[in-house]
């Protein structure tokens, strides 16, 4: 038994914001109430800290199987635990691609042995994510996938997207799309704009993303299926999602911490500023923050994308896209959104908990008999992020050395403390 005492419980599901104790019994929450006592239970003193439902990351890359030089399920989930995440959804662009039940099972089994937090795999939408035939989606669902995506690239054609959505609708799975138009993307390496012109780097127009979001919203209208837009970065995309929500379509979206923090003006010849979608314009960034505040955006997801040092220490245009993100996500949310008054704390917690849970068709709350997954964090703890101290195998983050106010303090997964600061 684990008794979490003296904390401030923030539960967006029940709109709870109160000084309460939480008693965990094994893998379940046993009781929640004021001044609980449990003789013999281990006590965690959460005085001055927030006790929230366990954070869910809808979007990460654990690189196993196949790219273990950059990350493994073990190191990636340790990093996730340090970031306060109790469950992470890993994208299928591994080697081999997670497009069949045996790969899904191997991830689930490896996570059961070595995972510091829960791992919920996302299966490929098409075989090999090649954009031709459908992957073995039903079998993968049986093995434990929570969604499908051809992440790293968009579902190749409108016709294929229609088939995937129709099929997943029957299976009750959301379809997650990495939205970009390949012909507009055209070998670009950063957002097109004054900064890409200055640096002489091939630009990717914002419309590369929003055109594809528009296509997907149209197919969602056609099929009525659940559509989730991954790592959304532009105002235009957000407007398509808003219009879809207005039509009561089951369309959701996520935004990454780096897209609500940085802009294309921050880009320099340093591959830690290279990710896809690229850092957007200031006006797009501000639009995303407005969307996070007004409820148009459903979740914050990290798109944790580890790449080993040698692969990133190259010319900007030759470096792979992606940055790590687990350990700085909450701190960026607090420092960039909550402390400056752009977002209430409860809303930030929602974006890490009930928001992503709803995308997956789940609930997330602190109540008796619920899974004993909790994220305990400080809103005031001052600290500096040191990528060198990360359990992740990769260090590719622009936030190395950044000072933060607010930090994860403990991550409780299935009743045991997976991380404690």
């Amino acid at each position, binding site marked *: 038994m684990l008794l979490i005492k003296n904390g401030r419980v923030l539960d967006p599901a029940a709109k709870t914001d109160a000084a309460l104790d939480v008693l965990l019994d094994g893998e379940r929450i046993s009781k929640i109430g004021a001044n609980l006592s449990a003789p013999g239970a281990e006590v965690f003193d959460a005085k001055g800290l927030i006790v929230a439902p366990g954070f869910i990351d809808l979007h990460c890359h654990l690189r196993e199987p196949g790219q273990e030089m950059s990350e493994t399920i073990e190191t990636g989930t340790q990093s996730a635990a340090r970031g306060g995440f109790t469950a992470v959804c890993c994208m299928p662009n591994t080697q081999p691609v997670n497009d069949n039940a045996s790969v899904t099972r191997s991830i689930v089994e490896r996570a059961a042995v070595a995972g510091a937090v829960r791992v919920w795999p996302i299966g490929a939408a098409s075989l090999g994510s090649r954009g031709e035939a459908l992957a073995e989606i039903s079998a993968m669902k049986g093995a434990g996938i929570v969604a499908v995506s051809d992440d790293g690239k968009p579902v190749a054609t409108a016709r294929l997207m229609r088939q995937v959505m129709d099929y997943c609708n029957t299976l009750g799975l959301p379809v997650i799309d990495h939205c970009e138009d390949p012909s507009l993307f055209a070998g670009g390496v950063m957002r097109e704009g*004054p900064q890409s*012109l*200055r640096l*002489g*780097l091939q630009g990717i127009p914002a419309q590369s993303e929003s055109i594809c979001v528009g296509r997907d919203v149209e197919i969602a209208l056609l099929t009525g299926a659940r559509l989730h837009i991954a790592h959304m970065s532009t105002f235009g995309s957000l407007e398509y999602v808003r219009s879809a929500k207005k039509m009561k379509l089951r369309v959701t979206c996520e935004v990454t911490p780096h897209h609500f923090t940085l802009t294309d003006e921050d880009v320099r*010849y340093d591959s830690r500023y290279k990710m896809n979608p690229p850092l957007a314009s200031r006006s797009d960034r501000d639009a995303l923050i407005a969307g996070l505040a007004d409820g148009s955006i459903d979740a914050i997801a990290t798109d944790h994308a580890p790449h080993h040092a040698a692969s990133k220490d*190259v*010319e*900007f245009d*030759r470096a792979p896209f992606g940055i790590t993100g687990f350990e700085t996500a909450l701190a960026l949310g607090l420092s960039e959104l909550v402390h400056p008054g752009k977002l209430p704390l409860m809303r930030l917690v929602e974006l890490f908990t009930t928001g992503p849970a709803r995308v997956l068709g789940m609930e997330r709350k602190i109540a008796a008999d619920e899974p004993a997954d909790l994220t305990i964090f400080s809103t005031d703890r001052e600290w500096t992020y040191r990528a060198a101290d990360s359990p992740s195998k990769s260090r590719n983050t622009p936030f190395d050395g950044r000072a933060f106010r607010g930090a994860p303090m403990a991550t409780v997964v299935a009743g045991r403390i997976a991380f404690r600061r």
Partner: protein
Amino acid sequence: MSQRLSHLLGTENLSREQIAFILDQAKPFQEFQRHPLKKLATLRGKTVAIAFFESSTRTRISFTTAAARLGADTMALQAETSSLKKGESLIDTVRTLEAMRPDGIVIRHASSGAPEFVAQRLEIPVLNAGDGTHEHPTQALLDALTIRDRKGKLEDWNITILGDILHSRVARSNIHLLTKFGVKITLCGPAMWVPRELERLAPNVRVSHRVEESLDGADVVMVLRVQTERIHEPSLAPDEYIAGYQLSPARLRLARPDALVLHPGPIVRGLEIDSAVADGPQSGVLEQVTNGLAIRMALLYHLIGGAAADAPHPAKDRLNASD
């Protein structure tokens, strides 16, 4: 000069004083090119690594000759024969070169920012000989020297840059350099190669997509090559380009009568420029090439020679001795 240079990565971060100093330092080297004995001992014992990761003829020969005329030895790396073909990374390649103890490295690379990337990781001076679609600072400096010579000064002219600006590192370096001297720049070419946002690159930059309007009142016209090798987008038919944007004798008459015509080369005659203009009296094309040697000698002398800014100029001694 206000601040000694440790590298030459671009013109954007050079001050007006630094640029004027380099042009002044190049002046005696310019005269030196006409001297019968074109060899100084100034950099004797020094070695310059010439690392060209992208093919080039004129810039490579110009840097190699500049180093030779200063008395330096060169070690050359060429993309076609380099270990990059065997999968070695840029950083490993330049660290290997550095281990042979050159005193400076000249880099040409297809990736924008590659010289800066290298400069952050090596101890020796790095000279950018053209990086991707970012900068080509020695070209802009030699253009400035040519303008100053032919027009008597560099300041306050109206200069039109004509062609594929989007993919041009020469244009970027010239825009940054010239606007520091109060030059008003008009960028002109087909709209897909001359985006409006270029006006935000520097003050006094104007975009025009109509060649006649862009040439009106120009004191200098810089013609750029259409960089087919850098264009990812669907391209324009050559006849369309010629009809819309080629600098022809008739179009040149729209500029000021004494307008100077420059081209960084290599020239594709009959495409971006008519032969009659390229070879005409207003053309400064061949002077640009000679001035390139003077500029590169000045930069190698300054960055690798390590002489104080007020030291006696090496070429002046030679020129005086032969008088």
